């Protein structure tokens, strides 16, 4: 939004021209992004055909039926109810997986950005590679490795850590969290790298000249400067994790590791009680919107503290 850019608008008028250029994309998003959200609401607040069990959406907001929401909210807020257990589990899995991802991503991104040197190109190829390998293939690799006669068991037995093969793929929270970290950590490393790479080294030199130890320089300069990137990295991987159902399905497949995504998948594609699935989606969206709101607030605060 530079001065000259504003001038183009003012001098030449032509706002209509730019709006026209954006129009096809905006129409597309209205049709296939906004409208579908309204349909979710109409299905969630709709009814179910008593004979065919198919949903009949209620298009008129004044006639919305809250039965599906009452069912979901009841399952969420009465203690020990099914949805509550799943929601709490999802929250903790995402929390642990995100924390582990950050512990892995930050040192790697920091090393490549700061010390990559002449190896930087090669290291970056290694960091980008997972983007071109499908997530599902990366899970398949772990299914191979974690089988009863797989290499993980072989190695652990050879090392003497295990006496007998451990069954990794049958309802283990550890396997699901490993899968989540393995799957999502590359998406956190790259933005962290891009940000750390841009930090001005003279700031660190200044900190050292003013008597800071190397660790103090890191703690008082690099770390605060990278707070916005850390927050962005957390959001980038936490949002899709909240909607994940394929990682637990592939690496566990047991009900005791079901996440909120599994419930949505079951209700929406299982055929029965689609309004309940739609209501779960709405609840998830409300929850994520609150989370995003907090993220934006935290980012603005961090940037203000940095005086940017």
């Amino acid at each position, binding site marked *: 939004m530079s001065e000259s850019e504003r001038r183009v608008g003012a001098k030449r008028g032509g706002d209509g021209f730019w709006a026209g250029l954006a129009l096809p994309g905006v129409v597309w998003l209205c049709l296939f992004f906004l409208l579908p959200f309204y349909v979710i609401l109409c299905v969630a607040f709709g009814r179910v055909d008593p004979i065919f069990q198919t949903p009949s959406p209620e298009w008129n907001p004044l006639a919305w039926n809250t039965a599906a929401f009452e069912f979901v909210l009841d399952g969420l807020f009465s203690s020990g109810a099914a949805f509550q257990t799943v929601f709490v589990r999802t929250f903790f899995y995402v929390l642990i997986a995100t924390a582990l991802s950050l512990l892995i991503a930050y040192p790697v991104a920091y090393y490549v950005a700061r010390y990559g040197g002449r190896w930087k190109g090669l290291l970056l190829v290694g960091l980008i590679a997972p983007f071109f390998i499908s997530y599902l293939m990366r899970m398949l690799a772990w299914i191979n490795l974690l089988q009863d006669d797989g290499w993980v068991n072989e190695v652990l037995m050879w090392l003497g850590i295990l006496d007998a093969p451990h069954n990794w793929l049958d309802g283990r929270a550890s396997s699901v969290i490993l899968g989540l970290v*393995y799957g999502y950590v590359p998406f956190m490393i790259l933005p962290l790298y891009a940000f750390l790479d841009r930090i001005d080294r003279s700031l660190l030199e200044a900190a050292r000249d003013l008597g800071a130890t190397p660790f103090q320089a890191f703690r008082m300069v690099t770390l605060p400067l990278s707070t916005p990137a850390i927050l962005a990295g957390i959001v980038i991987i936490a949002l899709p994790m909240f909607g994940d159902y394929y990682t637990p399905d592939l690496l566990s497949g047991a009900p005791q590791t079901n996440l909120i995504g599994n419930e949505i998948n079951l209700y929406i594609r299982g055929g029965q009680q689609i309004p309940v699935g739609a209501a779960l989606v709405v609840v998830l969206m409300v929850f994520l919107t609150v989370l995003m709101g907090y993220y934006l607030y935290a980012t603005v605060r961090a940037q203000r503290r940095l005086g940017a």
Partner: protein
Amino acid sequence: MTRLRNWLGNPWGKPRFLVLFTALYLVWSIVPILIAIRFSFNEGRSRSTAQGWSLRWYTGDPDSSVFHDATLHSALAQSLRLAAFAVLVTVPLGVALAIGLTRWRGRGASTARGISFATLVTPEIVMGTALLLVFVELLTFIPLGTPAQAIGHITFSLIFVVIIVRGRLLAIGPEYEEAARDLGASRMQAIRLALLPMLVPAIVASGIIVFAISMDDFVISAFLSSGTSTDTVPVRIYSQGRTAPTPALNALATVTLVVTIVIALVGFLLWRGVRAARGQTGSTVGEFAALDAEAVR
């Protein structure tokens, strides 16, 4: 502990801990994939132990090899078909949207920007449910299967084109268009003759990104599939991953991986070529990584 801290904090010292950590990360991130590829060449039926070398699960086996099992190779065809549709429609649509959103200052501009960026933070399961319900309940003239899947892929990849092209547009600034206009070009001519040539590297890069995320997509493809014939490779891996009796699934994943990387590499070389032709220099891989990072941000 103090020494570890010194390694972590000293921008001039030797970061031995970090070297080791990064090396371990790269091994951890890449070796499982290599092992999965290794098992695809098994002679026997095991997917978890090494059993000789053969092409049995690629071409040899008359029933369940990738070449002979229609459910496997049709999945690859479907993945590529959807990725091609996605690139062909999303890139022009996204470039126009990016230019429009960047220069448009009037009422509605910020709302339009907000809607575009909202697609970025919407989890796939939410978008998948939304699209499934809209095609089943309202826009029933669009059938599930390829048409619905293609629309889904275009919808979620649009924002990545917008982000990449917009980043470049903000860097270029409006001066070149202004100069073209002063020299008598119409608005459309200014875009076509002055702006688009400068955007070519960004357009090629966004094409690669759209291709990669379309090939990678699972949820949208699964929700909008109409049956086995429109399953993509990730959908096939999901439905057979735990039950597959043979390494043929590993072979399918390997073929897909190779095809994806070859196409992405061709795109990358093209990108480097057009970028060099525009006289931009510097670490190409580094800049592409930053681009990728911007796209996922």
